[in-house]
């Protein structure tokens, strides 16, 4: 396991650099939007990565509730944290793209709104983890994750219907995608997935060690203490 880490790091670095080159230089310039459209190669893969991480969080949470396995809980926590980061990227790149192209900072389109709601749900998840005074925080967090997951389809349908009733500009691809652009998109997505994996892995290991230290500290014998009395 530990040997894989440096390999993954190198692969990530390579993919990210290659992806950067492809996105900023090699990819064809979009006809109507110009160069600012290139942010699409970061906006969309971030969204897909975030959604995937949240899906893993859901599976890990359910697993935790059934098996009460500490590893599942750590995985849930880690994917939530990294997922929120990628969500933030989506929410920041969205307006940066929208403003020069459509003249507005925000539009309540499906992807952006869904991302916003997921971001809110998972930030509340992280806050619950931080504010909990229970010794069974993982249980509470897992339950919240399940509620969040149940909410997602409802959020999707409510926004979708609202959009069909009240159409507004869509921050997106608008139509078919040039195969060269699709190619760059996929390279960047692969790069982001590797980056997500790398960060999650690091955070996971960090958390495992932290918990071991906490446990050792709390069970420490007080023999020295008694001797000094």
């Amino acid at each position, binding site marked *: 396991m530990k040997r894989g880490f440096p390999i993954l790091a190198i692969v990530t670095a390579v993919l990210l650099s290659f992806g950067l080159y492809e996105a900023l230089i090699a990819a064809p310039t979009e006809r109507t939007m110009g160069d600012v459209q290139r942010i699409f190669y970061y906006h969309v893969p971030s969204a897909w990565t975030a959604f995937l991480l949240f899906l893993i969080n859901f599976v890990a949470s359910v697993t935790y509730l059934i098996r009460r396995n500490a590893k599942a809980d750590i995985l849930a926590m880690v994917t939530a944290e990294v997922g929120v980061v990628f969500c933030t990227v989506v929410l920041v790149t969205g307006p940066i793209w929208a403003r020069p192209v459509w003249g507005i900072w925000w539009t309540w389109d499906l992807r952006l709104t869904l991302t916003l709601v997921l971001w809110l749900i998972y930030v509340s998840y992280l806050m619950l983890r931080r504010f909990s005074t229970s*010794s*069974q925080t993982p249980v509470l967090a897992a339950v919240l994750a399940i509620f969040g997951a149940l909410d997602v389809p409802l959020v999707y349908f409510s926004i979708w219907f609202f959009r069909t009733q009240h159409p507004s500009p869509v921050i997106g691809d608008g139509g078919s995608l040039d195969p060269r652009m699709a190619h760059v998109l996929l390279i960047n997505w692969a790069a982001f997935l590797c980056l997500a994996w790398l960060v999650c892995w690091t955070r996971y290991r960090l958390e495992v060690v932290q918990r071991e230290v*906490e*446990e050792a*500290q*709390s*069970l420490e014998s*007080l023999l020295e203490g008694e001797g000094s009395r």
Partner: protein
Amino acid sequence: MPTPPIVVADGVIKQFGRFAALRGVTADFASGRLYVILGDNGAGKTTLLRTIAGLAQPTRGTISVLGSKEIKSVRAQIGYMAHPSLLYDEMSGMENLRYFAGLYGIEDDQSANQRCREVIASVKLDPELPRPVGQYSQGMRQRMSLARALLNDPKLLLLDEPFSNVDSRSAQEMSGLLAQMRNRGKTLLVVTHQPGILESVADEFVWMDAGKIVDRTAKLREGTR
């Protein structure tokens, strides 16, 4: 044939983040005896009682109560009393107990009323007293709280600081009542800072320190550990 122990704790560890309230408690508590649990603040006495009551789950290790590891299944046979009264301040004693009787399945009005009256009378309080529990004196409140714990005629009684802030007469009466319970075959685990009250009736004194049981004695020794 000897009856099996009522409570069996095996390597129980209970952590709250960085703090371990219980650091490995292994003990048996036999049936029909009155145990007094002693120790400084922070020794883990309350945590141990709550874990046995099923209110807290051990982080590691197991506890089995009345032969079952699933404390949920034996809740009907456990009585629990804590330092807070576990009663609704704005209701009378009888109203409180009627509600809790329902939780224990005593639904039929007549038998519920009768049982509540019996148990309130057994702690030397007036069942007809309409005064809300919030206006009781501390001694009365502790006794009503004990009545609530006795409502379901439990086999195992877990009492956490039953005598705190209680006048000495009430304390003596409660002590006598607890001895009666023990004589009727119930098992009692009493956490208290005032072991003197139970000195003559206790079967065993259990000493705790820093999350472990450090000693078990038949007599209370003054000021030593």
